[in-house]
């Protein structure tokens, strides 16, 4: 019967063609609004008021079915292995969500007097202590909403410090490795600096010679990612730090990859001046399909006066308060940061303790290396050495020999039940496959992933067509991204009906 069966599958609905706006029917409602039985105050003048607003009209059941069906068209860490390099997609303990949503935390008003928010403030204070201990940097600002926001904070702090030193006019350059995440140069530019790219040496670390020659009195800072985006330790970073200090510049650390070294080495000890962390990666707060996150900045005493507003201060009266550092770069958000995320991160830190955090980095690194050896030989490994949190393979061989691109390999992984790794980053590795299993993937999952990758390597030799057309089993096939960009359709524009 098999051959006939596809015919027996009724045409699958074009689910994406109908938005909530195209469902339901006029007059339907998901919730009612309480009536106003008091005296009616006349509304403001008509020219201040709006005409009809176009929004979907669905019953509650209709709306719930629509979004529930949408959720089924998503893949999360609870669905399976999600080895996005640089993104540290680890399992998120559910208890963290639970405690963050306790009514006492959830209903706290951001303008509350400190007496009415001590529970939150003390929790943040202890998180701050923990982050200072873990990074070896004494001062911490919790305001940044994400990693890039933390980068902006850090670079602006350096800017203001240079201003106070009277060297801001002179120091207009920031050195950024060619392996850096895009947010690094983008941030430098947002802060008004020129970006000079530093090449990566054959050992996967910064090319020392270039640094030495570029390091002059026009350099404001060097932004380094440790461990770097190749999953490798930045060799001799502590000496580089020394050079930078001598040159009168600052060493900025991108700490998004903290997961590999938690509890094993500290940025402060190595000579970093300021570092941002991605708590939504290393500290396991769920990523939510693109946030919210939290990107605290940790820095030296020298830079502490420049931290973004607010910072925490414990008064003699035992009350924790929010204050503005004297030379603060100012606020980064209207209020105090992504507090809900910070509480999750605190819960995560308390559940693990030092022991646990060291176990995390240990297992994360072990898993990455286990994957490295399992896949070894089947894909090119440009930097063929033990790695830390992630390993970056290259699809060049598959491309050269079989015309199969990393893009195809990624799509084929979907058919094998996995979320693909990060691809085409870092830019210095062609056809890059950047794989970060994280510590929460069990050995059998890493083995299954490696087997899938090996099977795909074989498929790329035997049946490249299958890879070019993949995925075959996803809710949708490959999408036309070119047309999407050429003729952008970015919002509902009115359409048919029926819930």
């Amino acid at each position, binding site marked *: 019967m098999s051959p006939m069966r596809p015919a027996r599958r009724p045409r699958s609905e074009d689910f994406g063609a109908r938005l909530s706006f195209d469902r339901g029917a006029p007059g339907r409602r998901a919730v009612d609004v309480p009536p106003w039985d*008091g005296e009616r*105050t006349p509304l403001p003048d008509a*020219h201040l008021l*709006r005409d009809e607003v176009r929004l979907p009209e669905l019953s509650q059941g209709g709306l719930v079915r629509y979004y529930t069906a949408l959720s089924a068209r*998503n893949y999360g860490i609870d669905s399976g292995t999600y080895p996005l390099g640089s993104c540290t997609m680890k399992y998120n303990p559910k208890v963290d969500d639970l405690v963050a949503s306790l009514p006492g935390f959830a209903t706290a008003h951001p303008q509350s007097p400190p007496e009415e928010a001590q529970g939150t403030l003390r929790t943040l204070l202890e998180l701050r202590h923990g982050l200072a201990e873990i990074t070896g940097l004494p001062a911490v600002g919790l305001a940044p909403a994400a990693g890039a926001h933390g980068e902006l904070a850090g670079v602006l702090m350096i800017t203001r410090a240079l201003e106070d030193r009277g060297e801001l006019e002179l120091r207009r350059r920031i050195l950024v490795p060619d392996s850096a995440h895009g947010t690094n140069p983008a941030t430098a530019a947002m802060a008004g600096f020129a970006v000079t790219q530093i090449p990566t040496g054959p050992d996967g670390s910064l090319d020392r010679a270039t640094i030495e020659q570029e390091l002059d009195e026009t350099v404001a800072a060097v932004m380094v990612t440790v461990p770097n985006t190749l999953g490798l330790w930045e060799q001799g970073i502590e000496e580089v730090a020394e050079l930078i200090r001598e040159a009168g510049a600052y060493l900025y650390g991108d700490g998004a990859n903290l997961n590999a070294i938690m509890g094993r080495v500290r940025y402060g000890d190595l000579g970093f001046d300021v570092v941002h962390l991605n708590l939504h990666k290393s500290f396991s707060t769920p990523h939510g399909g693109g946030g919210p996150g939290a990107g605290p900045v940790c820095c030296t005493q020298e830079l502490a006066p420049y931290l973004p507003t607010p910072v925490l201060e414990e008064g003699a009266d035992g009350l924790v308060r929010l204050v503005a550092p004297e030379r603060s770069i100012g606020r980064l958000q209207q209020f105090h940061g992504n507090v809900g995320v910070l509480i999750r991160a605190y819960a995560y830190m308390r559940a693990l303790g030092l022991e646990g955090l060291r176990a995390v980095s240990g297992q994360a690194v072990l898993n990455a290396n286990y994957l490295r050896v399992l896949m070894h030989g089947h894909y090119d490994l440009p930097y063929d050495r033990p790695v830390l949190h992630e390993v970056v393979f290259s699809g060049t061989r598959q491309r050269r020999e079989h015309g199969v691109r990393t893009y195809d390999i990624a799509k084929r992984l979907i058919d094998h039940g996995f979320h693909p790794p990060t691809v085409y980053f870092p830019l210095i590795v062609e056809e890059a496959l950047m794989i970060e299993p994280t510590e929460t993937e069990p050995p059998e999952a890493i083995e299954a992933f490696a087997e899938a990758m090996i099977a795909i390597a074989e498929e790329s030799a035997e049946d490249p067509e299958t890879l070019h057309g993949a995925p075959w089993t996803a809710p*949708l096939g490959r999408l036309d991204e070119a047309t999407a960009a050429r003729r952008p359709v*970015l919002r509902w524009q009115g359409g048919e009906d029926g819930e």
Partner: protein
Amino acid sequence: MLERVGVEDLAALFADLPAAYRDPVIELPPQLTEPELIALLEQRAAGNADPGRPNFLGAGAYRRSIPSIAAHLTSRSEFVTAYTPYQPEISQGTLQTAFEYQSVVCELSGMDVSNTGLYDVASATAEACLLAARVTKRNAVALLEPIHPGTADVVRTYAYGAGIRVDLVTSGDETTGEHACLVAQQPDFLGAIADLEPLAEAAHAAGALFVAVADPFALGLLRAPGDAGADIVTGEGRDLAGAPAYGGPSVGLFAARQQYLRQMPGRIVGRTKELEAPPDGGEPRTGYVLTLQAREQFIRRERATSNVSTAQALIALAFTVTVQALGPRGLREAAELCYQRAHAAAARVAALPGYEAPERGPWFQEFLVRGPVPAATLSAELAARGITAGLDVSDRAEPEAREALLFAVTEATPDAHVAALIEALAEIGAQA
């Protein structure tokens, strides 16, 4: 595994780390099991004000009635535990909901295009100023008072890096040829409803863009800024997503006119089709993808429109569900209910001997209260009676703000809280 990896212990995996600094002494509190952790944080949460305490603070964060399905749907783990949707074939949930969000934001703001959301209203407004500076090639911006001080401060922070001057103005007419944009808040920081059209005209007359910072909930009732001539609309979506959580996570709405599309910061989701027909036949199906990425940091790097990467997707989703659950009539009704309840409360306060509620024109949900005692005293007296007063704005320049507190009453403020407030104010008045 160790064996297969070829090391005899975990330590060996960290051999690259400089020996001198390896395994430092780190002081952290001991591990807690789940029951211990829950007990600790329940105790902490109890260290905040009782959630049932009457609280009249607004000033940027407002108590809203959130439909129960918002939390229900937003907690679906397929949404919660996904990353930014880099693989559209298995990320349609995140992508299509983001497209719903963009559509809702465009409808509310009267704008042509929206991104998927930024960190919060203040950073979104700062990005709006940077966009205005880029397109006008001017390096000053004008912020119209009264504007939220937090918003103004964040604009200054971003402007500092970009070398942009920030002027606080008290009238649209102060917008000059130096200004890349005029920024006005709706309702303004002291609660008044602004007439945006003349402001837009003033800005445009000076060759500047007009940026409206609008409360999306108020837009259920108030004129869409787009109709009034705004070029960019920003706003705060947090209050319609859920509880304030001491101010965050939030989501910054950012919508603009079509011509600024390629200058927009942040992620944008576009609608497209499959490249091929599905295996079981039929037409290529509709799908959603991250698009116009040439604007973004991971491609453009130092020439990107912004450095933003991770934003606030899950909050944007909750915001979208709430607005769609209310629907066109529900949103209007809720906004009107808020307006009516706030005005009824203000009238009761103003009717108390010794109290006045000075108005600065029509207003929405926040009103100024001046009492028989100084603002600080009034606030303290209320606190002593278990009530959290409105924000003390007595240090502001506006004459109506002199010795005044800024009270917020919304559709979600319990009647009992208003009654308690009136009683307490009367009592304080009697003793004054």
